[in-house]
């Protein structure tokens, strides 16, 4: 019995060893290990391995360096865990981490880039050796907005040294839009006087709806369609993206005022107005007061089944196009239009303008997006191939051919050039799947694009060739025709961490109180006092009296940051 038991246990152990072993690599001399966050719509390609081989081969031909690319895509939660252990282990083979950048907690690379200890490599001096990277970042950017995002302050509030600790992507900064149910607009046309054909961006000479007209439309639709969930289906920050230019307000970030002081966005009239309308619309059932519990897929479902009139859930035009494709597959008969940025006839300036211009408002555009939406950091580890990695990125940017190989795959096999599009006197290049495999590749994309380290529209900016004519028009209109409003927020200028405990505590309390007592009720449509009254009546005076040091910190640090960059590049930052 004893013998049998021992033999069984031993067999189990031996059998188990077949589970050992890791994945095989291509055997390149330098193993480039990269963890990256999955982008929206990014699927693992069915032929990623083929593209990997092609890239490694071409890189070797051009540079004589043999590499083995080990790029893994993770979800945000997974990446956070992996990077946490990867960064903590000094001997870990981890050459780069790529994720989106921003002020919020989901921007995984930011805490590591801003850490005072040398967790990531300072690229300030290195980057000069890789001219293609620097040129690609600086192209078409006289204000160095993208490059500025790559610098983080290292040190204390009183003595911060700016270091380039990230390599930023360069992505489009404009392209937000709004979709409206045209059938619903027509149903209330007699009441509102708004004909959808006049506002459809696909029609020549389309008009900009004013804010007053838009609001009247929403209330009219609500009265007409009693089974609606909500006329407007959107997350709060998406509402802000669309209406920031109209209301001159961005409550969500710190903004630089005309006198140079920096204040939270909700200090400004525009930010307060935005919150007031959110509160009012939420209260009146115009906008969903469950916005944080609702998923984007729910919103697509609502719009497709006529339970909402406006769709602007993550209102970037690319996402809107794919959302509307889903809507079409649910209800092909649904008629919807894209409308141009809402004109301001509601602020003081807007009212004055409208009075002089026959009711037309000021068109400032939808919110301008951060240009460097993604960035790469290089851990300062024992086992990193930093120089090879930088050479690889430099090589990717050295020619359009290399860049497109890494972005789209092997030309002729995974993609080919589509017909160019003429739009307002400019030509735009496109890409399509090869005809022989178009159906197969459309269902199952052959390549994920993961071996392109960072997108850079200065190198190549092809439109999808499989867009319909209307979709192409939407894309080009939103990206290139619509103006984009710069909210003058301080995003892209990273501030040092607050080392003074008093200031840090004040900042924490302020933020918490604002969320709990002002923003939360505003979004939920609760309470009887408008957010602007709460803010101007008690909140902001309290802020100045007890937390003025935090405001001083914001202003001082932002100004010294801007001065630093103005001196660095000999420019004047607007």
């Amino acid at each position, binding site marked *: 019995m004893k013998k049998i038991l021992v033999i069984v246990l031993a067999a189990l152990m031996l059998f188990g060893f077949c589970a*050992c072993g890791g994945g095989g690599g291509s055997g390149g001399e330098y193993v480039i290990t990269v963890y990256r966050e999955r982008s929206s719509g990014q699927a693992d390609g069915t032929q990623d391995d083929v593209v990997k081989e092609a890239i490694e081969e071409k890189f070797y031909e051009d540079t004589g360096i043999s590499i083995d690319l080990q790029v893994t895509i993770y979800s945000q939660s997974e990446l956070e865990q992996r990077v946490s252990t990867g960064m903590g*282990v000094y001997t870990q083979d981890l050459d780069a981490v790529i994720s989106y950048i921003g002020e919020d907690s989901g921007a995984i690379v930011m805490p590591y880039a801003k850490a005072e200890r040398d967790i990531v490599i300072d690229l300030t001096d290195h980057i000069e050796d890789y001219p293609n990277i620097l040129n690609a970042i600086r192209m078409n950017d006289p204000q160095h907005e993208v490059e500025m995002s790559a610098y983080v302050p290292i040190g204390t509030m009183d003595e911060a040294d700016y270091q380039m600790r990230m390599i930023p992507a360069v992505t489009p900064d404009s392209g937000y839009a709004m979709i409206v149910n045209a059938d619903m607009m027509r149903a209330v046309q007699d009441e509102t006087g708004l004909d959808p054909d006049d506002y459809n961006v696909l029609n020549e000479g389309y008009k900009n709806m004013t804010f007053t007209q838009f609001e009247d439309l929403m209330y009219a639709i609500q009265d007409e369609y009693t089974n609606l969930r909500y006329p407007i289906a959107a997350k709060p920050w998406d509402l802000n993206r669309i209406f920031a230019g109209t209301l001159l307000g961005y409550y969500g970030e710190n903004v630089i005022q005309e006198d140079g002081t920096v204040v939270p966005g909700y200090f400004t009239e525009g930010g307060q107005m935005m919150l007031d309308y959110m509160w009012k619309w939420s209260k009146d059932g115009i906008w969903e007061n469950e916005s944080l519990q609702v998923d984007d897929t729910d919103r697509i479902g609502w719009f497709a089944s006529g339970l909402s009139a406006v769709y602007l859930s993550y209102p970037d035009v690319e996402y809107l196009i794919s959302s509307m494709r889903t809507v079409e*597959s649910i209800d092909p008969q649904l008629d919807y239009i894209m409308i141009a940025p809402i004109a301001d006839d509601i602020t003081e300036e807007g009212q004055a303008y409208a009075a002089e211009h026959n009711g037309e408002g000021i068109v400032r555009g939808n919110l301008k997006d951060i240009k460097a939406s993604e960035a790469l950091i290089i851990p300062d580890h024992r086992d990193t191939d930093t120089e090879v990695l930088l050479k690889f990125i430099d090589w990717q940017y050295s020619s359009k051919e290399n860049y497109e190989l890494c972005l789209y795959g092997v030309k002729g096999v995974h993609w080919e050039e589509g017909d160019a599009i003429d739009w307002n006197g400019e030509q735009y290049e496109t890409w399509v799947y090869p005809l022989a495999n178009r159906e197969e590749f459309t269902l199952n*994309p052959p390549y994920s694009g993961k071996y392109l380290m960072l997108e850079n529209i200065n190198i190549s900016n092809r439109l999808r060739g499989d867009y319909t004519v209307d979709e192409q028009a939407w894309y080009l209109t939103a990206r290139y025709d619509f103006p984009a409003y710069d909210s003058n927020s301080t995003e892209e200028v990273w501030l040092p961490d607050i080392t003074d405990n008093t200031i840090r505590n004040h900042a924490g309390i302020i933020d918490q109180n604002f969320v709990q007592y002002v923003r939360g009720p505003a979004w939920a449509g609760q309470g009887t006092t408008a957010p602007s009254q709460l803010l101007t009546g008690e909140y902001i005076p309290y802020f100045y009296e007890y937390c003025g040091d935090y405001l001083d910190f914001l202003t001082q640090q932002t100004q010294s940051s801007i001065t630093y960059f103005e001196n660095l590049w000999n420019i004047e930052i607007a």
Partner: protein
Amino acid sequence: MAMVKNKTVGRRVFNVINIILMCLFSVMFIYPYLLVIGSSFTSETSLLVNGYNLIPAEFSVYAYEFIFSSDLPFLQAYWNTIWVTAVSVVLTTSVCFLYAYALRHPKLKGKKFFNLYLVITMLFSGGLVPNYLIVTTFFRDSLWSIIIPGLIAAWYTFLIRNYLVTISNSLSEAAEIDGAGQFTILTRIFVPLSKPIIATICLFVAVSQWNSYTGPLLYLESEGNYTLQLVVNKMSDLMANLAANNTTGRIIPSESGEMAAVVVSTLPIICLYPFLQKYFITGITMGGVKE
């Protein structure tokens, strides 16, 4: 007599209320899972338009087709998880039982030390990075990285020990007198008498390993080694991403697919539980002296 009558009436009322409450709680616990099953068999468009229903508005198995035909190694992950669970159950239960058997012995030399050694692991941990360093040094990207670190589970060991001390020493003494060795006493006397606790620990280990996510997330790198929860998470993320920016021209079942993945990943455990239920219930009430 009157008192007995009142007690009976009172008891009846209590029973009725108890039963109603327990039924309500049961519905509360079962209803969400039934909703998950119903949604997994509902078409994606119906889910988007009509929301979640117990009975599918539009029956469809597309979600199951999608998850089993995706590039993620779902079936391989299923097998990996079954293997990890089975091996963990056998090894963890065996090792913990042996440790507990030694600890129960009244005359074990260094008993306090071995007890303390176990207790300390319940109170303190080296932290994520040291754990990661040790595990990846020996079992990098291997399924053993999920099995080996959990072999000696302090809590399970104490549970078993507490059960074993309730078994009378006179049994082992009698066996010794009859010439039985320690191994014979263990396998012929204590193991048969310990079926309830063994079954309980097996169930605990099985559920724990089946649902394990953090370990696989940290230690497994190649897709061929992924376990089920890791693949389910990846699949959920992938479907949500594809649905958000869908250029494939087909419906991505992000909602129904998630439900299908949940059903597929929980079904084996749900099927296993009824067989071990009686031992589980007995096991959680143990601890009392049975002399």
